[in-house]
């Protein structure tokens, strides 16, 4: 570790015991607010499910077998399902960013929290944790559907859930950080503009080999590709060292998003 990291750890670690209660309170607040408004979040679960039914199973019946991660042939719906699981984990983080924007700009929820012993980094942690919980809830539901449809082949699939947690953390942290930059509701469109192409082109519906050389490189660095590749390996096998690389990608993405969110809340509200 560098000196800077040592200082950072020395500053953050002693505060963690107290932080647990503060972070818990932030999450509790979101759960209390969600009690009255539980229908909207359901869309994040149904979207990938509908894609699975229409494209994976419907369109899939017209398509033969295609190569999976290890080169062995798999059925089209088996191929698409892990990718849709990754996008359901992503949706939690992305959809939650609208709530974060509202709470910050209109609800004054964070102003209220900051008048108490809660600190910006606690708010960042709590909100990201909540976004992650939302993503994981979608993932659990989707995994259940996959299990019921017999779409899980490898015993490694047991790791799909913790992997979905990591993916949810990465997207939740970056979605929350992005929300702190929004000025109006129209800015939310930028999010859609980033997410929709990613959803369509991150090898969700066809293998990476479809792309030309340099395009493959572009697709490889996008976060959803990393999630799709990770879950496809775990669910369809074989699992290689590359899975560790994908996982590290989301740890880094989450850490950056968390730090950025904390800094933005401090910068915007503690003026």
């Amino acid at each position: 570790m560098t000196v800077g990291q040592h200082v950072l750890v020395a500053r953050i670690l002693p505060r963690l015991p107290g932080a647990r209660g503060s972070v818990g309170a932030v999450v509790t607040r979101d759960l209390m607010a969600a009690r009255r408004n539980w229908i909207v979040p359901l869309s994040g679960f149904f979207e990938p499910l509908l894609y699975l039914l229409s494209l994976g199973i419907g369109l899939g019946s017209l398509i033969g077998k295609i190569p999976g991660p290890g080169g062995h042939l798999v059925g089209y719906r088996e191929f698409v399902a892990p990718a849709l699981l990754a996008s359901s984990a992503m949706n939690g983080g992305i959809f939650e960013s609208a709530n974060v924007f509202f709470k910050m700009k209109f609800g004054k929820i964070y102003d209220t929290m900051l008048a108490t012993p809660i600190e910006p980094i606690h708010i960042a942690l709590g909100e990201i944790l909540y976004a992650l919980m939302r993503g994981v809830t979608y993932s659990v539901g989707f995994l259940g559907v996959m299990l019921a449809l017999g779409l899980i082949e490898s015993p490694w699939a047991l790791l799909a859930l913790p992997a979905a947690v990591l993916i949810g953390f990465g997207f939740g942290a970056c979605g929350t950080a992005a929300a702190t930059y929004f000025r109006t509701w129209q800015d939310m469109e930028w999010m859609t503009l980033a997410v929709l192409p990613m959803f369509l082109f991150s090898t969700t519906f066809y293998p990476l080999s479809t792309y030309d050389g340099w395009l493959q490189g572009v697709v490889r660095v996008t976060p959803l590709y990393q999630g799709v590749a990770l879950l496809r390996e775990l669910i369809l096998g074989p699992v290689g060292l590359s899975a560790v690389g994908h996982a590290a990608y989301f740890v880094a993405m989450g850490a950056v998003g968390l730090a950025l969110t904390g800094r933005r809340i401090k910068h915007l509200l503690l003026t």
Partner: protein
Amino acid sequence: MALIEAKRLTKRFGDFTAVDGIDVEVSQGEAFGFLGPNGAGKSSTMRMIGCVSPLSEGTLRILDMDAASDGPAIRARLGVVPQEDTLDMELTVRDNMWIYGRYFGIPRSAVKERSERLLDFVQLTDRADSRVEALSGGMKRRLTIARSLISEPEILLLDEPTTGLDPQARHVVWERLFRLKQQGVTLVLTTHYMDEAEQLCDRLVVMDRGRIAAEGSPRALIEAHSTREVVELRFAVDEKVDLGPLQGLAERTEQLPDRVLLYVRDGDSAVAELSRRGIAPQSVLVRRSTLEDVFLHLTGRTLVD
């Protein structure tokens, strides 16, 4: 011991200096007021005391801790009633109390017990299950006050606690704040209502353009910056007022578009002198000097936005 001790407290936003090096001390159990027109720097000062706004310069000690480094520990012992209600619109009245207590890390059983007691204190028990949105302005204000008390704070910061409330609601708020003061809670408030300052404050400072223009108890400020009584003279609208015959009658004379104010020690004898000089205004009113006279004298009558 001073609970709040600010020295050369300064807040700048870019080139603009909102608070310009003020010294303030607030003692235990005191009700202290920041009085001033809009833009005088009251709210910026309150935010610094609330440890949600870093100082640009100076030092600020609160409860014997440093505001710059001990923010969370200080905030744990403060109650804050912000200028705009920041209640959680997505939750009910009772849930607002509950979650606010949780923000302070207060154990669940204690939050529950205190919520019921405080909702009773601000007369909102029968609205406990209402959504906050449905409450009137006065009820929201009372709920904000009740919420700020959930941590049993030693210092209560109130930024314009009754702005926008109708007279009934204001009196209820004043009465509750007075009871808190009797219980030993130190009150620090901002206001631009003179009657509020006179009702609630033991001591206050008048702020103007980021500086302290005067300091003292309401009575001392009136004695120092105004006369004991004021005679208000109204003349007919079309009458050209000649101040000449009024000369030497008052310590200070002020001519306004609709009336003339005479600042005098004894109003009745000034009125007798008026008739002796043959001056016959349309109406004459003798009243005691108020903080408003001090305020307008110190901060001017120009409209501030």
